[in-house]
């Protein structure tokens, strides 16, 4: 059986890299903090903490001006891919904290935060399943804000439409295939 392994990165190197990421994340996480105007055609950096008024309050979400004004714009999000037991082709979720799903046992009684973003692949790639990866990922795409019900009846309020080049051209032959083989019973 072949199992995937993380690339051999020294802990010290990993820490330095992680600290750099952490510092960049800390730079603009406060709600309402203005973001420097993006350079022409450059995507806007958007933080989960900027999506709606925090704390949530007594009823629904109060979407922020920052989020609403980014509607239709190219934005860059940094978050965690939700680890799904039953991933859906063409889409996955991005959250500010790592979340694992046990759909078979728990269904929609899940641990997804209200700020969960539904990430959509290019329509031509809607049949593809995305490999989960641990740690933070950086995604750039077009932001969509508003209620949308998918075919399963699940409702999303914030979506990120990825461009076609967000995917590798083909599955990697190493770990991914090996992992699939690992579960052949």
């Amino acid at each position: 059986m072949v199992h995937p392994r993380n690339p051999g990165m020294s802990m010290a190197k990993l820490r330095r890299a992680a600290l750099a990421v952490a510092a960049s994340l800390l730079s603009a996480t406060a709600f309402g903090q203005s973001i420097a105007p993006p350079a022409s055609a450059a995507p806007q950096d958007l933080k989960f903490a900027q999506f709606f008024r925090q704390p949530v309050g007594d009823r629904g979400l109060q979407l922020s001006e920052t989020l609403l004004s980014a509607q239709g714009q190219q934005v860059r999000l940094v978050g965690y891919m939700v680890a799904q037991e039953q991933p859906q082709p063409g889409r996955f979720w991005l959250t500010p904290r790592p979340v694992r799903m046990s759909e078979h046992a728990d269904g929609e009684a899940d641990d997804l935060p209200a700020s969960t973003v539904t990430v959509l692949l290019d329509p031509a790639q809607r049949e593809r399943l995305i490999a989960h990866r641990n740690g933070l990922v950086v995604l750039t795409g077009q932001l969509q804000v508003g209620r949308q019900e998918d075919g399963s009846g699940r409702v999303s309020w914030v979506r990120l439409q990825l461009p076609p080049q967000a995917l590798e051209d083909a599955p990697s032959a190493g770990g991914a295939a090996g992992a699939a083989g690992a579960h052949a019973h």
Partner: protein
Amino acid sequence: MKKLSPMLVTAGALMGLAATAQAAPTVTRLTPPSEMFASGRPDPVIARFLPGQRFDLQATIKPDAGQRISAARFFIDGQAVDAAVALRDCASGCVKGVSAETAIATVRAVSLEKAGRHEFSIEATQADGQKVTARGNLEVVPFTAAMGPKVKNIIILLGDGMGAAQRTAARIVKGGYAQGKVIAPLAMDTFPATALVKTASLNSVVTDSSPGMTAYVSGNKNNNNEEGVFPDDTVDAFDNPRIEYLSEYLHRTQGKALGIVTTADVFDATPAGNAVHTSNRGAGTGIVDQFFDDRSRTGLTVLLGGGRKWFLPAGTPGSERAEGNDYAFSATDPHTAEIVKRWGAAPGAKDKDRDLIQAFQSAGYRYAPTRTALQAATDGAGADKLLGLFAFSNMNVALDKIDGRRGAAKGITGTVVDDYGFPDQPMLDEMARAALSTLKKQPKGFVLMIEGASIDKQAHNMDTERWMLDTLEFDRAVQVAQEFARENGDTLVIVTADHECSGAALIGGSMLTDQALQEAAQKKGVAHLRDKVVGVYEKAGFPRYRIAADGYPEATDIDYRLLVGYGANADRYEDWRTNTTPLRDSQQPLAKSEPLKWYPPVPMERDDAFGEYLVTGQVPGESAVHTATDIPLSAFGPGALAFTGVIDNTDVFFKLAQAAVKGTTAPADATGAKRPAKATAR
């Protein structure tokens, strides 16, 4: 989406045994389920009911090709059932594989008073005059002579997925051991009576939470993913044959109130499995609507948990309401119209724009969105009815709620609960206390279900420390219930689980300090992370967790920690340390911006993969799974001593009902009682 069960196929294959006439039309399903119908054997009796407990009769009949079923009658003990039979075909709305001309015959809300076994049957007539009959059996379980008074209140504490390993781990963490003796026992360890419970569902030795709960409060086996109903052949999630719940039975016959408290989304299987009838545990909009719509039938007085997203009108950001998972019964089609007519159920409506919080408030429920509001709702005279929705889906787990509270006390923000937007969530014991202070005003008594939901959810994740702390949180709620029962001599309390989860096993203790464990993770691999860490037998010693004033460990990453293995695990990397999830943790991996990999997905990657100690799993997928092992049940208060032996999960229902309807059948255990058991006015 429902599937035809293997049992149905078997039933069809064995139809020759079941049908008394060798007619061409065939009965492919007969409900309530019975071995008499499925295999021709009279034993074991599958469906059992209390005297007067209501249930539906149903049959699926397949006619000859080109024919149709023109009439159907049900009989019980040879006597025709005196109620209208709703007859529909399967031209639309039935599961795959069922032909359009197939008929479904249903009689709603029948009941039997006479104790003992009963035979029931269906006689269906085809348009050309051919008839087919099939029979099954069921049992009405008699109440027995009481030795003690009736209990006024029932409290069911359900640790979801809480097997013996979870209970023991919580005891080691909270109570500590000195030379093999427990220093401070769990509250649930002080309950005088214990039973071992068999947890199988109607269609598997491995149950999920829906039938796991409903067995306790309906006395019957349900299929996985279904609650308060028997399986059928339609796709409608709300039209299945129903079984009356304990809450409905005791509200109808005694006026008792119902309270539901959970750390999960309130639409989740366990809470819904006390009041809602559906074959789709995921039908959130319909489930929460039915909580409210049928409150006059269940006595729902307290509902506390997460799941606010289902209560917000569809236009409100964050709402999850959708008409696709709502319910509405037809006014004209007897198949569902009879549910309204004979059960007295609300007709429902496809109303995604409904403001359900407002509906509860208009009906007199005090709404609490936070812990602060929950406390205010119980100040002074307190609310008479209570709705608390403290999160959008599941509430955050105990470890994260406690971290948030400790952080807030030090002025630290940015904790998990802050990121979720709900920094002021109550702990389960605080919710239990609020529920009891509200329900104790009910003159006829109450049934209260309190669920520690994420014991299970975090075991699925194999997140050891999080399920440990959720078990501690649950035990604090057990203590609240026990104190209430001690104060009042009229309350029966049981602590149980719906099933075991993850096959957790306490394999020993770490032989390393936490610092050395972190260094071992950097050295990587089995040699460092298993062979040098896992202390078995006497090398495990007695892990010592220091408990803070708030009742939870000061730290979970202690030296010489308790180690847990999993017997029902997916592949996982293990580093033994608490799974950290902070966005701002210096240990976090580098953010990746390269293109995403696509199918086939790479499993198992998580935040403790850097030690490269892979534990190969025995189940496919990403999560640990429920297991079929029996679970322990503990009981306290009058009637407690009826809960002994190795019992079926459905037996629990009859023992609870006996205590509440007729009186206790075993000597009351007075351990710790501040007053003797008192009789409830009839």
